């Protein structure tokens, strides 16, 4: 056969099955039909491009517009709406780790004069409290403004334990068993680094890393380790866990907001 030829698939009933697989008579459309496909797709690309350029402004306007709704939302449905100013819950293990207030203990050990073990009452009531209201900036782009934090200064805890002269770093362990972070001694003793037990006016929830998490105000969120249960004073940064979980995946070790990871966000400290 020459020209076009539909492939026969076989016979069903009285007629032949025909698959239109090879060149067949040209499609003819009524002249009033309009070819819209390519235009529509180019249009979507155009709108997408404008969205990349101006979306940041539109999103912040939209967030403001939606705020009365999201703040009073009892259904949780608005959590499905995109927003740039809402916490997103990141965890690195299969299920969220869990520890009750009663069984929670925080250990400070390593290159210290004496190992200290604290429970939640120590952290909430016995030790001096610090309140801090700062933005939380994620390295992936979202930022929650003016988050109130409450907790104990890391510097005070380290003082209590008595840091050895040889100490260079502080390593943080999460009770999820995987997540670790580090700070240099200089970074760790800043006034805006908290071992936090309250955020947003309430005890830190399990999703946010409760009952106790770290809050490193001047750095990207991945430094603010969740589910903190051990603070280890170190005399060196050792492989393979150091300098930390996200650092090993390519993020900067010194995670200053606006001055690391190739980003230029407004600093949070």
């Amino acid at each position, binding site marked *: 056969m020459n020209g076009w030829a539909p492939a026969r698939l076989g016979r069903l009933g009285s007629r032949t099955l025909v698959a239109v697989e090879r060149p*067949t008579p040209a499609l003819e459309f009524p002249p009033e039909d309009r*070819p*819209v496909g390519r235009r529509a797709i180019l249009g979507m690309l155009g709108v997408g491009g404008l*969205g990349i350029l101006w979306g*940041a402004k539109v999103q912040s306007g939209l967030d403001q517009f939606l705020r009365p709704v999201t703040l009073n939302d009892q259904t949780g449905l608005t959590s*499905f709406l995109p927003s*740039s100013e809402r*916490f*997103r819950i990141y965890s690195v293990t299969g299920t969220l780790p869990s520890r009750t207030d009663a069984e929670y203990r925080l250990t400070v050990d390593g290159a210290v004069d004496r190992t200290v073990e604290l429970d939640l009452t120590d952290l909430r009531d016995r030790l001096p409290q610090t309140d801090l209201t700062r933005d939380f900036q994620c390295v992936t782009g979202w930022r929650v403004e003016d988050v109130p934090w409450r907790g104990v200064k890391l510097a005070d805890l380290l003082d209590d334990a008595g840091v050895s002269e040889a100490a260079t770093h502080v390593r943080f362990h999460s009770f999820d068993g995987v997540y670790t972070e580090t700070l240099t001694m200089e970074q760790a003793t800043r006034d805006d680094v908290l071992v936090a037990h309250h955020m947003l006016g309430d005890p830190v929830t399990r999703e946010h890393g409760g009952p106790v998490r770290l809050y490193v105000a001047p750095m990207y969120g991945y430094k603010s380790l969740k589910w903190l249960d051990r603070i280890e004073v170190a005399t060196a940064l050792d492989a393979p866990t150091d300098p930390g979980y996200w650092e090993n995946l390519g993020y900067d070790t010194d995670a200053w907001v606006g001055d690391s990871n190739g980003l230029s966000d407004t600093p949070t400290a």
Partner: protein
Amino acid sequence: MTAPIVTADHPGDAERVVRFDRAERWLHWTNATLFLILLATGMTLYVPALSSLVGRRVLLKDTHVISGILLPVPLLLAYAGSWRAALRRDVRRLSRWSVDDRRWITSLGRKGRASMGKFNAGQKVNAIFVAGCIPVLLATGSIMKWFTPFPLAWRTGATFVHDWLALTLVVVISAHILKALAEPVALRAMVRGTVPRRHAERHHPRWAAELDAELDAEERHGTEARN
């Protein structure tokens, strides 16, 4: 025109015509698989309740990125060989918008059926929208992943576009799946490739006429070849 009543045991139903050939079905299902993986991982990455439930952020993110990069591959492959003929014809059909399409869509499917071609207006909108989503999601997703060369506001903008478009896509795909489940004949056309001729005549009369013309031409051709 009053359409004939079609029942499953109508004798005419035994006669089936090909609606989607193998290449088209392969494209549809590989695309569908990738889209579902992307939507599932994407939603888990950003709905806090789901993120808390599933965890494993790194694995989810890698799966999402790899599936995203693969997304245009089935379309490119489907266009890469001689098997593309039926697809190309259907793409031309899908991208044409007729006066009756507008009537059909504004009347929610009650009007404009008499001159319906192979695809109704809903199927056209679905196909064009999903096709348009691929490059836009790919471009915005790439800016989110490889953000360093771009101004910071672009990443926020790209996230904005990516999130809202994906949300719209969830709605469109859900509607698409619900329609398919409500129309087993249409679903079967995408699974097995064929529909009863009566279905074509009733729902897509202009397409049925095209098929008749092709069949006639083939029979003529076959006769000539035998002579």
